[in-house]
Every structure is written in structure tokens, then in C-alpha cells.
């Protein structure tokens, strides 16, 4: 049953082939048996899941089933869950049990989904390898000595290991797409503002966006249809009606104009990864799409601009963790200053502290114009590159990440090397555009991700292109070897 996609589970439940309690129990058992190998979950909510599943079965029997009724999912531990510990991968929030649900969590509940628990992640979503989690690194199901990507590494690994068919995740600089690429799963970051950030613990507010990780584009579309909504509680959330993102999956892509940015195939790209992406583009040509070479001239500035903007926003957002109202507090503070200094010094991990300090630097007196303002100007130049490109093309494609999954510990000592992992994904966040990663083959025996970048609010076209590729190929159906 664990091989089933969300679309298949929906059909199976409605045709009474199995019940939600059956599939939920089966997956909970798998998590218990196997997750010791992967460490993809921080918290498993078995009892609650079975209660939700039983309620879903009753609704299915009564013929009153909402879109995802009885479908098991899991939430990245960045989304607040009422009564269930929400750690954000940090010692700072190890004891934090939110008194409310994030809008995303609420949306899935309204849709009848069953939550199996909370998935592991880089601390405060800062990382590309899932090694900065307070709860330990997540292992890639394709090779347990390798990283699953990050920051949504637990969400991606849990799907790749078939512990759950779909998970929620978040993407600030690539945190949905890069782990999807590393684990052979399908991940989607929507247009900035599509998905409410209310109750999603903030890292960099102008970049953060929630989205799904699943095994197919169709499943990602089913999840996004539930996940995206307008929300008066998040003033940056777009005021657009909920829509059915599966509606145009089956449209033909003949005549689709695919922009191929030459900057995404240069120095730093692994040769085998590049070859797999080229083969995927050939496949698209065979499906009737037209490849158009384009240029995104400011591409190389995306990583530096991001590492000003994201830390600056993080330093402001994470100032709320002060040891006073919730979260970690140090032992025996001498005075209030000592309470702040040690609670934050002890509660945050190294990467989080580093980014707060960089952000503090960029925002401090005398540096604001040279760093933050400059980066925001460059952000507009990067956006303009995309606006110009989308005059000529419908979607943009290239690699998701420059290399397949690297070894645990390999890039830990060098933050800048780790940052370059997101060289192809970060520009999309800076511009606020939607992006996806889907499996397109293997390099050095490990999954490779094809990235699709869509125009603003054009998720349906991106999903259509991804679905048509998956109808013609079976890379997304390859499964990681069983853990022993």
C-alpha cells in the first residue's frame, strides 16, 4: 500500500479497496520499522493519526468526503500544529507546543487529510543538507551515507522512503526543490504569496513559501489545490481564490516554449547532471515543445544577494526568541542581558547564529545602504531578467542543483560551498516565481532533478509540463533501495 500515490489512494478509499485506518496503520508501522535508518520524522503522532483516519472513514462511508479525505500526509516541523510540539529543528523550540494550527495545517485538516507527524528539517530551515537539525541529520534513502538535501530533508526523505505519499515543506532559497532533486521526488514552490505563511515559523519573510513534496506532479497539484488559499491572517498572502491545479495536467504541451538559460549550464555543473537535464529537454522536444536559448544575465548575483537579504530578515525574525515568552531559557540567568545572551547562545545552533550575525552586520549602522539596500536593488535586476525571459517563453528549465546528493559531513566545514548548492534555485525566490523539481534520471547512481520555473501565478502550466513529462518517462517511479 505504501507504493500508492495520493491520486491512487483517493481512488482506493472511494472504491472501498482499503480504509484510511488501514493505510494509516500500515504507514505508521513502516515509520516505526524503518525511520531509524532515515531519521526523517521528529515527531510521530500515531494516536491522533488513527483518530483522524477513523473520522475520515466515517465521512467516506457517509458520502461526505472532502478532497483529501483519509489521505495520509506529514507536515514539516516548521508548521505550527495545535497541541503537537513544533520544534523547527531547533533546541530553541524543543519544548514548544503551539496553541494553534498554521493555516496550511488547517487547510489539510479541512480537506480531511490525516497527519502522521512532523518531519525533520535544518534548524530554522537554514541549510541545504539537513545536517543542522538539533534532532540529527536525515539520511538519503538512496544512500544512507549521503544527505537528503535541505532544508526540507525530512519531508523529502519520508516521501522517497515511501513512509508517506506527500508532505508539506517550505522553500526560502531552494529548500523544497533541492531536497526533491536529491531524493528523486517531485517538489513545488508556488508563487510568493500563494500559500499562507501564518503559523509557518518565519525565516526570511519576503522569500519563504510553503509547498508540497510528493512522488508525482499530479499529487503535488492535488496537494497545492488544498494548501494554497488567501488568508486575512497573512497580509503578504495573495488575494486569489482557491483553484484546482489538476485541471490542465492532461493538456498537450505541443508548442510549449521552454527557455533554457545558458547561465545554468556553465562552470560548477556536474557533467552527468548536465547530461541528464539535456536528455530531459530532448524528451520535451519529442513531446512537441520548442527549446529557446535564453539568458538570465544577473544569475551569478543571486547567491550573494540572497546571503544579504535572507540573513537580514532572519536576524529580525529570530529576535523574537528571547527566552522570555516561550522556547528555551538558560539556567540561572544573572540578569536580563545574561538571560538573552545565553538563552540565544545556547538555544541556537552554529549556522543559525552565523546567519543572525551576518544579518546584524548587514543591517547595522553604516552598512544598511551598502548591503541590504544594494541587495534589494539587485533583486529587482534579477526579477527583470525573468520578466524579459517570460516575454519569449512559457516556462524555463534547467538543473535543480549542480550535483547529486553529497556525503554527510562533506560540506559542513565550508558554509560558502554549502550556499552554492542553491545556485540555480535562489533566483526564483528572489524574484518570487514558482518553481518545481522533478526526477529526470540518475548521475553517479543518484537521482537528478529537473527544475521548471514558471511565470507568476502560472503554476498550472508548470504542473502540466511536469505531468506530461511523467506520462512519458518513469524516473519518478524509481524507488530507493530498501533499507537494511
Amino acid at each position, binding site marked *: 500500500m505504501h507504493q500508492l500515490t495520493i491520486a491512487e489512494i483517493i481512488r482506493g478509499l472511494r472504491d472501498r479497496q482499503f480504509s484510511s485506518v488501514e493505510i494509516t496503520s500500515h504507514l505508521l508501522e513502516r515509520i516505526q520499522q524503518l525511520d531509524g535508518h532515515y531519521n526523517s520524522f521528529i515527531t510521530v503522532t500515531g494516536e491522533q493519526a488513527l483518530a483522524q483516519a477513523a473520522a475520515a472513514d466515517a465521512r467516506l462511508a457517509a458520502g461526505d468526503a472532502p478532497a483529501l479525505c483519509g489521505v495520509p500526509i506529514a507536515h514539516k516541523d516548521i508548521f505550527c500544529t495545535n497541541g503537537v510540539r513544533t520544534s523547527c529543528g531547533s533546541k530553541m523550540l524543543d519544548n514548544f*507546543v503551539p*496553541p494553534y494550527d498554521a493555516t496550511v495545517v488547517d487547510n489539510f485538516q479541512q480537506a480531511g487529510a490525516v497527519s502522521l507527524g512532523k518531519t525533520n528539517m535544518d534548524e530554522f530551515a537554514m541549510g541545504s543538507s539537513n545536517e543542522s537539525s538539533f534532532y540529527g541529520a536525515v539520511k538519503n534513502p538512496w544512500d544512507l551515507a549521503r544527505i537528503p538535501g535541505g532544508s526540507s530533508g525530512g519531508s523529502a526523505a519520508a516521501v522517497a522512503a515511501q513512509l508517506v505519499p506527500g508532505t508539506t515543506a517550505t522553500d526560502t532559497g531552494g529548500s523544497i526543490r533541492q531536497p526533491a532533486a536529491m531524493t528523486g521526488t517531485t517538489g513545488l514552490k508556488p*508563487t*510568493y*504569496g500563494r500559500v499562507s505563511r501564518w503559523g509557518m515559523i518565519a525565516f526570511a519573510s*519576503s522569500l519563504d513559501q510553503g509547498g508540497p513534496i510528493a512522488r508525482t506532479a499530479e499529487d503535488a497539484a492535488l496537494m497545492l489545490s488544498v494548501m494554497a488559499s488567501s488568508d*486575512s491572517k497573512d*497580509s*503578504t498572502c*495573495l488575494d486569489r481564490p482557491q483553484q484546482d491545479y489538476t485541471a490542465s495536467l492532461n493538456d498537450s504541451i505541443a508548442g510549449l516554449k521552454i527557455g533554457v538559460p545558458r547561465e545554468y549550464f556553465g562552470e560548477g555543473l556536474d557533467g552527468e547532471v548536465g547530461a541528464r537535464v539535456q536528455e530531459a529537454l530532448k524528451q520535451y522536444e519529442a513531446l512537441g515543445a520548442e527549446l529557446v536559448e535564453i539568458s538570465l544575465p544577473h544569475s*551569478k*548575483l543571486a547567491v*550573494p*544577494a540572497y*546571503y*544579504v537579504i535572507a540573513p537580514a530578515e532572519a*536576524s529580525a525574525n529570530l*529576535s523574537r526568541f*528571547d*527566552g*522570555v*515568552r516561550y522556547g528555551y*531559557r538558560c539556567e540561572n540567568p*544573572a*540578569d*536580563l542581558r545574561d*538571560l538573552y*545572551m*545565553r538563552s*540565544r*547562545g*545556547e538555544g*541556537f545552533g552554529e549556522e543559525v*547564529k*552565523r546567519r*543572525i*550575525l*551576518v544579518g*546584524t*552586520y548587514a543591517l*547595522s549602522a553604516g552598512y544598511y545602504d*551598502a*548591503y541590504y*539596500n*544594494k*541587495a*534589494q*536593488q*539587485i*533583486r*529587482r*535586476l534579477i*526579477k527583470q531578467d525573468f520578466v524579459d525571459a517570460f516575454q519569449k517563453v512559457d516556462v524555463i528549465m534547467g538543473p535543480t542543483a549542480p550535483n547529486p546528493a553529497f556525503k554527510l559531513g562533506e560540506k559542513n566545514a*565550508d*558554509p*560558502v560551498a554549502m550556499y552554492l548548492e542553491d545556485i540555480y534555485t535562489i533566483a526564483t525566490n528572489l*524574484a*518570487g*516565481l514558482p518553481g518545481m523539481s522533478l526526477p529526470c534520471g540518475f548521475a553517479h547512481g543518484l537521482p537528478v532533478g529537473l527544475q521548471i520555473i514558471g511565470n*507568476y501565478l502560472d503554476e498550472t502550466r508548470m504542473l502540466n509540463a511536469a505531468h506530461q513529462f511523467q506520462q512519458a518517462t518513469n524516473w519518478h517511479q524509481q524507488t530507493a533501495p530498501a533499507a537494511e
Partner: protein
Amino acid sequence: MAVDAQTVEKLAELARIAISEETIDEVSSRLGDVLQLVDQLQAVNTEGVEPMAHPLDEIQVLRKDAVTEPNRREEFLKLAPQTEAGLYLVPKVID
């Protein structure tokens, strides 16, 4: 661009993050690497470019100033490390 230990100490103070003496050299060197990366921005001519705050240039939505949330003071206080008489407790600030 190198960051000296004194700068790191100043930043740590501004950010209210205790950094131990033993790690300060490592932190300075790592911060220096990151600042070197972001210093690439300085070479770009951005004269006349409007800084971008929101990807879709949407403006802040205003809502009516109405009460929408119930008072859940007790629940929120329960999350705090130390409270007394309905208030958050911190070490003495004034004598």
C-alpha cells in the same frame, strides 16, 4: 573581507547572542568568508534601480480595526519558562 574579533563581539552584543572565547576566531573567519561572498554585489552598478521589497509589488492590505481573536492569555502564559500573577517573569531589571 576579514572580520576582526572586536567586530564579532560587537555584532554578538547587538544580536544578544553569547559567543564563547574559544570559538570567536572560527566565527570571525566564517563570517569573513560569507562577507567576501556578498561583497561581489559592490561591483554592480545599481544607480537608479528601485529596491525591491515585494516580488509582485503588492501593497500592504489594510483591514478593519476590529477584534477577531479571543483573549487566550492563560494558554499563552503556559508556554513561558517563568510567569507570576499573569505576567512574564525575568530577572530584576531595576533596583
